[in-house]
């Protein structure tokens, strides 16, 4: 019975195993990215970047038709350009990063929609580009694996300035010039993760598996390292449970994963060790002198 419920879907069906590997690998890369986004108060940036990718994908589509690699490359380039421009503008001028990002992603989105409709076909490009978690083939899995590897190595390289900039940007500026480059590399890694997320799981899930687990992590840990571990684990658990939910109730797979993450978030919100609501109402006894 338990076996049928929790294991058999993955043993009997190849596509379920692939979906599981896909969401695990994705959670591993998206978890830390989400935590850093959250700590830098950039939680909505993922959503914005998702739209920024569109014109690149559209141009890739115009050049070589429905070719996954051309469209991915286009999406990556467009995402990089928007992320870098927004980062540079916010560093060089007094316009805040969220404002400049909003401007660039909206321009980007408008360009993308224009390109697609000038082509005259109303096939939903995103539907093709951003497939379903149930349809992961070898190429897509490999792409996700490579992207996650790049993300983890990249984060390891810029970890120190990144953490410092989250907690004390002025101090970082006074002792080092690494802040700028680290920030740009971080934005690039964000785009890489979004694109691999889109491929596997669609726009909704790519951003969702980044931010919801990060918010969960915030309720269970005070230091960044633990937060990242909780976040990646929460993403992986949501992926596993979401796939099972979709398998047993016929809910669509992508939303199911995010729904499970949302439930985990609600539980964390109530019972979280760090700042959870119950913990605030009934604080643990302090050692008082």
């Amino acid at each position: 019975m338990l076996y049928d419920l929790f294991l058999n879907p993955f043993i009997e069906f190849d596509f379920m195993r692939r979906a599981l590997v896909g969401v695990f690998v994705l959670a591993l890369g998206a978890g830390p990215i989400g935590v850093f986004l959250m700590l830098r108060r950039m939680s909505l940036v993922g959503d914005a970047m998702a739209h920024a990718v569109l014109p690149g994908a559209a141009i890739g589509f115009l050049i070589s038709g429905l070719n996954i690699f051309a469209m991915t490359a286009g999406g990556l380039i467009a995402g990089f350009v928007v992320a870098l421009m927004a980062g540079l503008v916010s560093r060089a001028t007094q316009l805040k990063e969220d404002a400049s990002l909003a401007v660039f992603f909206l321009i980007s989105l408008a360009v993308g929609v224009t390109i697609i409709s000038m082509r005259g076909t109303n096939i939903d490009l995103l539907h093709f580009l951003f497939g379903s978690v149930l349809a992961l083939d070898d190429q897509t899995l490999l792409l996700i694996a490579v992207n996650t590897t790049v993300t983890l190595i990249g984060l390891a390289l810029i970890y120190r300035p990144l953490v410092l900039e989250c907690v004390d940007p002025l101090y970082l500026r006074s002792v080092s010039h690494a802040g700028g480059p680290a920030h740009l590399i971080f934005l690039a890694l964000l785009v890489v993760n979004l694109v691999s997320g889109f491929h596997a799981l669609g726009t909704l899930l790519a951003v969702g598996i980044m931010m919801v687990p990060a918010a969960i992590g915030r309720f269970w840990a005070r230091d960044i390292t633990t937060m990242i571990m909780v976040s990646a684990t929460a993403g992986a658990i949501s992926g596993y449970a979401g796939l099972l939910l979709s398998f047993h109730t016929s809910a669509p797979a992508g939303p199911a994963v995010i729904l499970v993450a949302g439930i985990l978030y609600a539980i964390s919100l109530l019972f979280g060790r760090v700042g959870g609501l119950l913990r605030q109402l009934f604080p643990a006894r302090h050692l008082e002198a």
Partner: protein
Amino acid sequence: MLTRRMILIAAMLLAPASAVLAQEKLPVVASFSIIADMVENVGGDRVAVRSLVGPNGDAHVYSPSPADAKVVADAKVIVTNGLGFEGWIGRLMKSSKSKAVNIVASKGVKPRKMAGAHGHSHGHGHDDGDPHAWQSVANAKLYVANIRDGLIAADPAGKAVYDANAAAYLGKLDALDRQVREAVDKIPAERRKVIVTHDAFGYFEDAYGLDFIAPQGVSTNSEASARDVARIIQQIKKQKIPAVFLENISDPRLLKRIADETGAKLGGTLYSDALTDEKGDAPTYIDLIRHNITTLSAALI
């Protein structure tokens, strides 16, 4: 500067000429490419047909543009499929204050109940049954008759032309119908079943006795769940379904995955809701049906 001026002058000279041409022809708007092809065949030189949803477009999720509203406002005749296929056309006709005659091509077709095989509630936003009636050539002949009668009503002077064109086209459709039946007869009875992405072949199934099984509901909007996919895979394995088909309007990757996992053959592309452009496999309705049956036979025999 000189060139720009020349272009302007050329445009001014040409514009009245094309306007005169347009006035001579009866302006007809078709809701999507298959209907447009039929109208062209019946109307011949007397009509100027424009299709709102172009080749390879998906009429289920189409959203009309202001340019479309203008085209509809200028049209004398609007030909739609009916059966709730184009949910957007009623609003478009109202908002553009169109005074055109509306020919519902599927008039007289016996609507087929949607097969709710996979427990989906179907997302067309209507309860009229399956709108993809043109997939049976017998229904297509009804379409042609409706279009002929409608055009005659709108343009009585062209009656002889429309009658002659329609008769010739109906003859071709009869031949097509025979061709499909002969092709199906050659397929062994136990192999007459395929998987398709989009549940659009119900009428074909009823008319010619092939079994089409879809992993998604009828609307291309809905996303397949893990359970649907698992059921399809189990079904293919259990019933030994020989082939899986792609269409020109749905996500092909899901089907590739199913095919890989079951060992069923990927049978090529079947066209359901839209014609292709000139260079494609199915630029006309007759080509579309012929392409589909050839592809089916190749995979199943």
